[in-house]
């Protein structure tokens, strides 16, 4: 058993993990960092983010605006101390990326340009054309190469965390190419493994987005918080689910139904804004949860367009013209042409809502610390209270760098204050993980892994989708219990050790099922509608009296999770009605009158 001692172990090398690694290396070059990823860092799913990253830059904008947009966008389930810290540090961190070379799009005078985004009152989304995540990730990866204290473990799959004596102690890794096990003994661990969108059949996520870190922490007693809040992005390509960025609408793209009608005006997002103009927080620039719900409503009314890839609406960019599309949305044009055979210069793009983002995740405080000493979490795998019940587009890329830095600094300090424990205990704990892993690989089951994966995705779509009922959620819960049972008996044909992807898929499927279960059980007990959690079985309203609370799912081996609740941190913004379009303006006028 190879045991490697390090100060800070970081699991996941996307935007959050890389930013954390750099933060440790910059502030404490004497600390050793083990940066672990199941893929090469530049493959991480940060790469696929398109639209941009939010940070206040314009004179007529303010931190208060960004705070208010985020808190109301999250339907008041955000921890406001976290949001405050976030908006205060956002622009600084995006500027840091600029200094490291990120090619943010510029104005003619060479200063940072920003675009409009859904739910944001003023334009504040920094963008690198429509490849913002790609450029952020490559900039961070390339910058990380500067620091000799960062030791990468590329294509090393994390089998489990090690935790005993009341703190995290490291992780057990599988070197994918070699098929050998490596044990990382760490003073502190930062989890940065991304989301879990792959629990659903139709999603914008890469194949690697399988909830690994969430499930690992969950199994070690750290609760998963607010897991019922799953974001459907309103504009994915039908069939494959590939993302058509919100930037399309930020630049002026419109959504129309089968009659060419801009249906959003019928759902409290109007009045209609003339084609060719945009108005922040109106129509197509409403928040994602609302826009996805509107699609479902239109589908019920028979107003969507039937295609062989399922029902769609049209995202029309034609009026932007070829030049603007090429400058601002070149990747969208490339993707649309390749995957649905539509050139958006000449034709509208067929789109439908697809699962995009998990608002919930590993419970942390505002400084990224979990309740397990020494364990931190950052990025989509974490729930630090920023997004509440619905994330605003372009807040999550910024989250990676703001809280990536925080996690790195916090973990570094923890490492300085901590000593490694005796290696014998690490060896023993690691041996248990290796025995379990070995048993899984050599199990002689009969259940088809791909069948379980597919049934899981379908039951999540059906039961824990855009709209939910007690009956649909119960069905999903029952189905997941059955699938978990069948998972105990899965067939793994490939017993070899070199790059055995079948075996990796098997472990990932275990992670996915646990995450899915946390989502479904958290959802059924939230008897209200808030943000992305919408019920149509008598709980259509938000219920602050009973549910202005975070849900906490606690893992119970062999049983359904136990669901508990914790308080939401409210500082300055008292819960109010969440409105967009003209209704929001009326409300603002109202408030000004009252204050006046």
């Amino acid at each position, binding site marked *: 058993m190879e045991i490697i001692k390090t100060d800070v172990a970081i699991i996941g090398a996307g935007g959050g993990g890389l930013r954390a690694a750099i933060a440790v290396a910059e502030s404490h070059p004497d600390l050793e960092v083990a940066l672990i990823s199941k*893929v*090469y860092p*530049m*493959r*991480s*799913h940060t*790469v*696929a983010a398109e639209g941009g990253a939010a940070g206040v830059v314009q004179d007529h904008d303010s931190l208060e605006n960004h705070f208010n947009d985020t808190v109301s966008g999250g339907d008041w389930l955000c921890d406001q101390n976290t949001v405050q810290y976030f908006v205060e540090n956002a622009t*600084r961190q995006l*500027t*840091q990326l*600029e*200094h*490291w*070379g990120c*090619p*943010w799009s*510029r104005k*003619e*005078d*060479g*200063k*940072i340009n920003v675009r409009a985004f859904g739910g944001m009152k003023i334009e504040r989304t920094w963008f690198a054309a429509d*490849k913002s995540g*790609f*450029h952020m990730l*490559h900039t961070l990866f*390339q*910058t990380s*190469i*500067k620091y000799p204290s960062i030791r990468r473990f*590329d294509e090393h799959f994390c089998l489990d965390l090690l935790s005993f004596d009341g703190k995290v102690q490291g992780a057990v890794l599988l070197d994918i*190419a070699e098929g050998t096990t490596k044990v990382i003994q760490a003073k502190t661990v930062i989890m940065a493994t991304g989301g879990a969108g792959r629990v659903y059949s139709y999603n914008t996520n*890469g*194949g*690697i987005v399988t909830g690994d870190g969430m499930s690992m922490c969950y199994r070690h007693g750290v609760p998963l918080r607010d897991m019922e809040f799953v974001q459907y992005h309103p504009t994915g390509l039908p*069939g*494959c689910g*590939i*993302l058509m960025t919100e930037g399309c609408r930020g630049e002026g793209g419109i959504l129309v139904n089968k009659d060419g009608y801009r249906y959003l005006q019928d759902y409290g997002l109007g009045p209609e804004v003339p084609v060719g103009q945009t108005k922040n927080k109106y129509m197509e620039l409403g928040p994602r949860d609302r826009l996805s719900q509107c699609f479902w409503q239109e589908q019920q009314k028979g107003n969507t367009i039937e295609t062989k890839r399922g029902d769609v609406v049209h995202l029309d960019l034609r009026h932007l013209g070829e030049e603007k599309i090429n400058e601002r949305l070149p*990747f969208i044009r*490339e*993707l649309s042409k*390749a*995957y649905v055979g539509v050139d958006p210069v000449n034709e509208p793009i067929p789109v439908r809502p697809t699962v995009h983002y998990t608002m919930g995740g590993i419970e942390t405080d505002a400084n990224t610390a979990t309740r397990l000493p020494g364990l931190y979490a950052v990025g989509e795998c974490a729930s630090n209270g920023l997004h509440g019940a619905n994330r605003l587009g372009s807040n999550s890329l910024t989250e990676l760098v703001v809280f990536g830095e925080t996690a790195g600094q916090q973990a570094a300090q923890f490492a300085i204050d901590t000593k490694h424990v005796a290696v014998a205990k690490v060896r023993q704990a690691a041996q248990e993980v290796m025995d379990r892993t070995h048993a899984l690989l050599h199990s002689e089951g009969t259940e088809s*892994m*791909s069948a379980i994966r597919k049934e899981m995705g379908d039951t999540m779509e059906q039961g824990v989708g855009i709209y939910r009922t007690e009956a649909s959620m119960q069905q999903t819960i029952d189905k997941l219990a059955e699938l978990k049972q069948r998972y105990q008996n899965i067939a*793994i*044909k*490939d017993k*070899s*050790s*070199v*790059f*055995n*992807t*079948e075996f990796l898929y098997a472990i990932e499927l275990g992670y996915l099922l646990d995450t899915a279960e946390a989502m479904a059980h958290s959802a059924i007990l939230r008897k209200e509608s808030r943000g992305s959690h919408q019920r149509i079985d008598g709980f259509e309203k938000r219920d602050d009296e009973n549910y202005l609370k975070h849900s906490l799912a606690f893992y119970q081996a062999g049983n359904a999770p136990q669901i508990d609740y914790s308080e939401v941190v409210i500082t300055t913004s008292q819960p109010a009605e969440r409105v967009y379009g003209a209704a929001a303006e009326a409300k603002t006028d109202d408030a000004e009158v009252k204050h006046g």
Partner: protein
Amino acid sequence: MAETLIDIDILRYRPEEDDAPHLQTYQIPFDDEMSILEALQYIKDELDSTVSFRWSCRMAICGSCGMMVNGEPKLGCKVFLRDYFPNKITLEPLANFPIERDLVVVMDDFIEKLESIKPYIIPAQEKSIDDGEYIQTPEQMAKYKQFSMCINCGLCYAACPQYALNKEFTGPAALSLLARYNRDSRDAGGAERMKIVNAEEGVWGCTFVGYCSKVCPKGVDPAAAIQLFKVESAKDYLIAMFKPD
């Protein structure tokens, strides 16, 4: 109506079981919209779970699924069965890379080359975050933007006849990345990096076949980057002749 089928040959190599790589044929239902990557997923899910290949984003941005499709380097997610039907499709690991297993190649040398060219901003002097962003006009950005679009898929190394002959050659993607930083107005590390460019295994290894630019799925045009460097490198050489250290 009978289902239309298509044959796919996959180069199989499992080092623990196989003495040498060999082709294995799979037959799958033809679907007009199916990408090569989706075909591989179908094979893995339905026919043979032991086939290994890398993939993630399925939207041509993560760079994982490079492979040889009928002898040409391609991203599996960006080519479709319809591009080849009714002919048989042959899938092999990227040329010029050692095979790890099946369609998975060893990327170590490629990654080391990317790391070797100092791919980060080396500023003339440290600038504080409090001083805000660097001013960079769209024209200044246009000088390097194209070379910042590389997704590190490795197709250009599979296409490069020089890399095939000499693994010391820095190669198209790494030299493009080098150009990306040298041409950035925020960077002052050009002189350091030109030592890499001028070395024997730097740009002069390139015989300007241009196949790297042809296979690049992102329009990075590494051949252009290398050609630009040759001009600069020749200048460096001439100056050095008249001004010996």
